[in-house]
């Protein structure tokens, strides 16, 4: 009797197809078996876990107060994982008193030390998990282990360390991140880095200044953006150096940060940045001018209202609407720009703030405006069209330097 292989051989060219059929059928069977086994395993695992979670929950207070000896659950990895997960989940939503109690438990039970050990000694996936858990504890003693994780070769591990340090939300963690950036440069995506620094630098934003000054271009942009968010009024003088920076992002960051600065200084700078050739720098400047709520910002906001970029126009409109005590004179000036898009942006902001009725009543009660003018303004407000339709052209407005976004 011939073997199966001999039979296959005799099939000639069709043998290939037969092999392919066999492979495909085996593939189907393996996939099905995998799905089946995985489902069964998971079902068993989760039912066992649920039962154990329930048991541990029944004795939770005794467990974290130490009445139940830590040794009873620490030696069993299954129990230890459950206890740690429950504690860290509770930590996320806990108030100060409960946080302190949980942190004390994590320390005295040795869970933090264990995670620090794992973060230092393990590699790859296990190290990453340890770093994530360590970050969630927010225990300051974990900072150095997390900082070591920043130098890992694997990006995901570095990100886990970075996010963990971000959760610490303290200047010590910021110093570690900045020192690492100074040494290695930008080796992680910008967003997690910015998020971590935002959390850590809120207390001492001055930490960022030397790094922004000295970093290379891409990192400078990233740090500048963070600086823009966390800057405080006391940093006004420090921020001035970035107003004329060659990097657009940094000028934009300076514009954003100047909204926190002392008004007099901020105004001059922002008025200058509101005329920047780059649209997002103008956008940041206009938003900051609106936040300053200083009437000296009105001319620049009016200029912003005639900007080529619609986002700048909209934000300028919102800024102008913020001057609730001077609605009539501002509206008059808005109409005076003869810019249809600008008028629309202002009316949009007015209506979004639900202030159109207020402007109408103020316009009616205003004695400083002559009857003819009042009628004209009321008409513009009602119809949303300029008295003489003069849609602004690109050439008629000096700062329409770029196409619409």
């Amino acid at each position, binding site marked *: 009797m011939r073997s199966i292989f001999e039979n296959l051989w005799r099939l000639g060219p069709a043998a290939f197809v037969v092999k392919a059929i066999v492979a495909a059928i085996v593939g189907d069977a393996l996939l099905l078996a995998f799905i089946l086994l995985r489902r069964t395993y998971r079902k068993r695992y989760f039912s066992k876990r649920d039962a154990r979670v329930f048991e541990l929950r029944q004795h939770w207070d005794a467990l974290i107060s130490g009445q139940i000896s830590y040794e009873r659950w620490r030696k069993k990895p299954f129990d230890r994982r459950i206890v740690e997960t429950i504690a860290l989940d509770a930590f996320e939503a806990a108030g100060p008193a409960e946080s302190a109690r949980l942190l004390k438990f994590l320390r005295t039970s040795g869970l933090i030390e264990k995670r620090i050990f794992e973060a230092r000694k393990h590699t790859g996936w296990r190290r*990453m*998990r340890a770093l994530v858990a360590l970050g969630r504890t927010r225990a300051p003693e974990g900072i150095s282990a997390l900082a070591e994780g920043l130098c890992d070769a694997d990006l995901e591990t570095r990100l886990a360390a970075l996010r963990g340090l971000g959760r610490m939300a303290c200047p010590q963690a910021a110093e570690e991140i900045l020192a690492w950036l100074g040494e290695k440069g930008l080796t992680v995506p910008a967003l997690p880095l910015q998020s971590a620094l935002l959390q850590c630098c809120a207390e001492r934003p001055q930490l960022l200044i030397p790094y922004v000054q000295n970093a290379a271009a891409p990192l400078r942009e990233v740090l500048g953006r963070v600086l823009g968010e966390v800057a405080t009024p006391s940093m006004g003088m420090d921020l001035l150096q970035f107003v004329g920076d060659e990097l657009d992002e940094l000028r934009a960051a300076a514009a954003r940060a100047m909204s926190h600065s002392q008004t007099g200084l901020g105004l001059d700078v922002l008025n200058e940045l509101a005329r920047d050739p780059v649209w997002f720098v103008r956008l940041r400047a206009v938003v900051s001018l609106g936040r300053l709520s200083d009437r000296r910002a009105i001319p620049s906001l009016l200029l912003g209202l005639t900007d080529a970029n*619609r986002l700048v126009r909209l934000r300028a409109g919102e800024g102008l609407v913020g001057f609730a005590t001077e609605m009539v004179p501002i509206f008059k000036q808005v109409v005076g720009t003869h810019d249809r898009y600008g008028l629309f942006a202002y009316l949009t902001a007015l209506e979004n703030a639900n202030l159109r009725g207020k402007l109408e009543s103020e316009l009616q009660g205003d004695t400083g405006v002559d009857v003819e003018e009042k009628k004209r303004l009321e008409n513009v407000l009602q119809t949303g069209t300029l008295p003489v339709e003069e849609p602004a052209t690109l050439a008629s407005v000096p700062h329409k330097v770029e196409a*619409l976004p």
Partner: protein
Amino acid sequence: MIRFLGISNHTLFWYYLASNLAYLTMLLVALRTSAVHQRRLESHRLNWIKETPLAPPITIIAPAHNEESSIRVAVRNLLALDYPQLEVIVVNDGSQDRTLEQLREEFRLRLVRAVYVPVATSAPVRGLYRSEIDPRLLVVDKEAGGSKADAVNAGLNAATSPYACIVDADSMLESDALLRIMVPILEDPKRVIAVGGIIRVLNGSEIVGGHLRRVRLPRKSIEVIQVVEYLRAFLIGREAWGQGNMLMIISGAFGVFRTDLLRAIGGYKPSAIGEDFDVVTRLHRHLKETGADYRIHFVPDPMCWTEVPSDLQSLGRQRARWQKGLLDVLWANRDMLFRPRYGRIGSFALPYMWLFELLAPVIEIGGIATIILAASLGVLSRGFFLQFLLFGYAFATVISIGSVLQEEITYKRYNDWQDVARLVSYCFLEHFPYRQLHMIWRLRGIWQYMRGDTVWVPSKRKGLESATVR
């Protein structure tokens, strides 16, 4: 004749083998990508995005045409999405029912004069309304433009955010869908210009208070087969194409784009039959021609649940329309083929679309015809034919089960054993006669297009009613 039949059968065999091997490769790429994605999520907490001031504003644009029965639930769902800076624009595209009235009653709309810059072509706007209850909601009431693209353009003209998220008003987004879809953009805002999310089948599931409460497999076979198709198309196809930066379609039901770029290409093309494919292709063209360094991503976990046709007639019409859309875009962009300027889009993605998507029904139906002819002439090798049939069947089933596996090990939305068993069984059943029917519908689409029938006809949809709404 016999020589012709021989060549034809061999061509069919190799075509089929190549097509399945391509899918197998995509399955492997997708499995790997999903595993990496799942690991990354381990250290990623979405609430960080929710809390960060760095998250850019998004405008959701939801075109609605005769959606009176579901518009309230749908808009409530959109407004309840987790995202720090959100604007929702609902475009009432000349509805003849009470869609606008429903919105007025539910959200206390007032007429406003919001900025509307007609950059993209759209039918005239009758009015803009802002909600007094939730000022993030803007309703654009416009005359019927005859296409979804026209309605999206109206929303685009009113949008005020740097990113626009296009959704269907009768689809249901999961509450963290925006946070998830924005992850690639936030990680690389300079290069990532668009992201597509996954579309899943809503039919049969349960919606409570504007939220998807329970995911169930639909009852009808025709709907379950579409679940398998969607899993295969998104979890394998798009995931793999996205990895190679060759994603050609971002579903019209859920995708995020940079608003400035959408405006730069003139918005959606109102005359396009497959507006979602068209817009992504034009974005590729625009960016390749300007030499931009960009990426278009696909993210498999921000889920959008949508209704699929529940009868053969509607499904046939939908698939014919998709095929027309495919041909329309491929033909319009045929100059991109094999031009080095368009990189891998011109040299790989588009040729694949021509060969394995557009011409598939022609080749398959042609192949079946030649097999029948060969059999009638008595020159068909029955043994080989049966082997080929079995091989094709088993191989195609591997791909389908692979997509179910992908869903199982990653997102696992079907918790019920029964659902998974049914899903797997349809992986075996979809090949006869659904596949052949599908080919006929697609062939009909090509025929209709060649005859000049290029009008965009919206399909009748039950929308959120396809799920159990409470």
